[in-house]
């Protein structure tokens, strides 16, 4: 049956879109968050120039670094189409582990490394339950949240850890003139970004989240990868716990209420799709910085403290809606 074939368009003359366009189309949400940060900086600095003094920049960029680090692991988990609501409790457990080791005479390096491995171990169990037992991750981690939170209290009885050796308090130190938490955040974010962008393992995270069925058919060992991703997330939680534990000279055995929600919020506001398969860790780190900026900015421009949380909520909502409008325009 003879049918006229459509003409084949040769490649020539078809140019790739410009760099800015590509960045904006690929990293749209990151751009929105970055724009929000810049906008806040400009506006607040106009109102109160002290906002950009060096110390305040340190406070903004390093004060929430542990949340950003935890959000890196969370971003990976969310990209595979899963979620973890137990990470807040896990950070509490790991901080206590680090502190306990440090004051009971173990070498400092051991106290600093142990939480990473404990975090990996705990999350490996979670990962196995998700990947092999096929329990939805929200169910497993809701359960883990209860277990870790209850376990922490019943083991520690809620005592605080003080008398920490000075060398242990790495988050208070500076390297090359920059605060260590900030360096951790930046280095880990960039490393994780590059790893996810350019390593085969990293790409498979996107693949699993984007189309799990296809991942199986392509020969990606989905179950093993899922366990690994949870374990890596545990390692990041370990690093976050260390930054959390070494910022002050005492370690509280309770963690900030709703820490897990803060971390998840940072991740999704940063553009990681909860449906899996897209987003970057740069976005989640930018979102953490955005939260810190908002918190600081509202104090600087004298928003009544009572309304502070409402304003934060409104700004988060605005960011979300801005992203949605951007997407709708594109389609």
């Amino acid at each position, binding site marked *: 049956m003879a*049918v*006229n*074939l459509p003409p*084949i368009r*040769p490649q020539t003359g078809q140019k790739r879109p410009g760099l800015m366009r590509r960045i904006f189309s690929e990293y749209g949400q990151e751009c929105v968050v970055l724009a929000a940060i810049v906008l806040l900086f400009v506006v607040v600095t106009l109102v109160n120039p002290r906002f950009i003094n060096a110390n305040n920049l340190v406070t903004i960029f390093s004060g929430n670094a542990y949340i950003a680090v935890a959000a890196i692991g969370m971003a990976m988990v969310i990209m595979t189409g899963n979620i973890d609501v137990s990470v807040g409790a896990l950070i509490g457990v790991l901080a206590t582990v680090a502190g306990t080791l440090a004051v009971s005479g173990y070498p400092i390096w051991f106290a600093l490394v142990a939480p990473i491995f404990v975090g990996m171990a705990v999350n490996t169990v979670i990962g196995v339950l998700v990947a092999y037992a096929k329990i939805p991750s929200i169910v497993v981690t809701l359960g883990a949240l209860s277990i870790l939170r209850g376990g922490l209290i019943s083991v520690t009885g809620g005592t605080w850890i003080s008398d920490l050796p000075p060398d242990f308090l790495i988050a208070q130190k500076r390297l090359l003139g920059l605060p260590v938490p900030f360096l951790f955040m930046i280095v880990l974010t960039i490393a994780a970004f590059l790893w996810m962008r350019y390593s085969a393992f990293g790409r498979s995270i*996107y*693949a699993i989240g984007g189309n799990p069925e296809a991942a199986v058919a392509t*020969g990606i060992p989905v179950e093993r990868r899922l366990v690994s991703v949870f374990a890596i997330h545990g390692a990041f939680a370990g690093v976050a716990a260390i930054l959390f534990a070494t910022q002050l000279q005492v370690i509280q055995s309770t963690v900030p209420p709703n820490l897990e929600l803060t971390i998840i919020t940072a991740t999704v506001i940063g553009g990681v799709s909860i449906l899996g398969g897209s987003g970057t860790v740069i976005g989640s780190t930018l979102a953490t910085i955005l939260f810190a900026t908002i918190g600081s900015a509202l104090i600087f421009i004298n928003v009544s403290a009572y309304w502070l949380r409402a304003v934060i909520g409104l700004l988060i909502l605005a960011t979300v809606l801005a992203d949605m409008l951007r997407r709708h325009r594109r389609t």
Partner: protein
Amino acid sequence: MTSHEPFISLSGMSKSFVGIRVLKDVDFDVREGEVHALLGENGAGKSTLIKMMAGLYKPDSGAITVNGEEMKFAATGDATAAGIATVYQELLLFPELTVAENVFLGHYPRTRAGWIDWAAVRARTRELLDQLDTHDLDVDAKVLTLSVAQRQRVEIAKALSRNARILIMDEPTASLVESDVQRLMQVVRQLRERGVGIVYVSHRMSEIFALADRVTVLRDGAHVATCDIGEVNEQQLVSMMVGRPIDSLFPKAEAEIGETVLEVKSLNHGRHVQDISFRLRRGEILGIAGLVGSGRTELALTLFGMTPATSGEILMEGVPVRIGSPQQARDLGIAYVPEDRGLQGLVRPMAIRKNVSMATIEKLSSGIFIRARAEAERAREAVRRFGIRCRDIDQPVSELSGGNQQKVVIAKWLETEPKVLILDEPTRGVDVGAKAEIHTIMGELVKRGVAILMISSELPEVLGMSDRMLVMSGGRVTAEIDRADATPERVGAAMTAHRGAEAA
């Protein structure tokens, strides 16, 4: 260049799902440099057999021999390593990743440092796509922006990137328009020349005869026959598949054509529906032909209220109406059987009963309560009327074969007693037997005075079934052709024509 030793051979393959045997002791083999067609009705077990060859399913029993060596495929990786690549029925790509990544995911070329060599990934993808005559596809485009035909090209490039000795293609042409089918067949021949062995599954007889060297027919999970293509004719193949002869492929029922039911005047919606006008009469089948992206589906969606028209006029039985939602369309007597059965047509985990009643659930309720007895009655009636093969009406639709699933969608919409029925690719991926049944149903409907708007990418189907045809290109109607004047050449010309250059 066909060698006579099979590259891969399967013997005594059996497989059961939840206690039901879907493959019974099947033998199958493929040689290098041949096209081996695999035929069978929906649910005959073709995809299941293929998935075992690909290492996706483990056989309950049976042996796989590759190059004379017995193999166990524990995972898809083992099959790929053995030189077997698969293009699945439901294209398995990663929508958020780029074309190049999709092609090389899982076996990226590495730099010496162990990182992915992106330059090589892109260059080699370009090369593979060029080999497939697909020069217009950007290797950096995200797959989610591609059309079905383009995605398929990516799948084939992916298979080739692994230097496959055997390429399995499960219904590769199911969602392609004719022109793309031709290009695909070209590619298949080219691969055969290079010595690749190809397993080719399709429900379209014309392709089988144009391509295949050998055919194997499955029925109800059992092996019926394997023979050279020269030994059989179409009639024989069909009766081997169905177990009975089928007289005519496109039975055109003679129905009386009545007054105009639906009239559309210069309808517009976005880029894909521009200035469309036509009339549809009672008892008439109006076929719409066109290439992928010609806007046929968009037109249907606009008529059905999914994407309401931005301008233009729609008249139902002479009365101007506004259609802003599928509910309004339904209440006006328009029904739409969508092109993507799994995504748009069915709630697959739900029972047949609930799917059938879905569009008429208000009618089947007193107040807010569903009248379960009446609902079951209607469903049973539909199962009987359309010959839906199922255990009972409470069986989840996901367990039915493709053709039967399609009948459930049609049954659902006929429950609304529509005046206008829009069928978008009604027989896509449906076997010959079921296809004939669906065509028979269409014939009965027009006899009862329903007006049918049929979109199909299978030219013989449009030509065979329609009373009149619209041809679309670039979002516009480029030709309106009566049954008597319709020839493949005329329609083909109009499909690629631009407005103003209407094929007269």
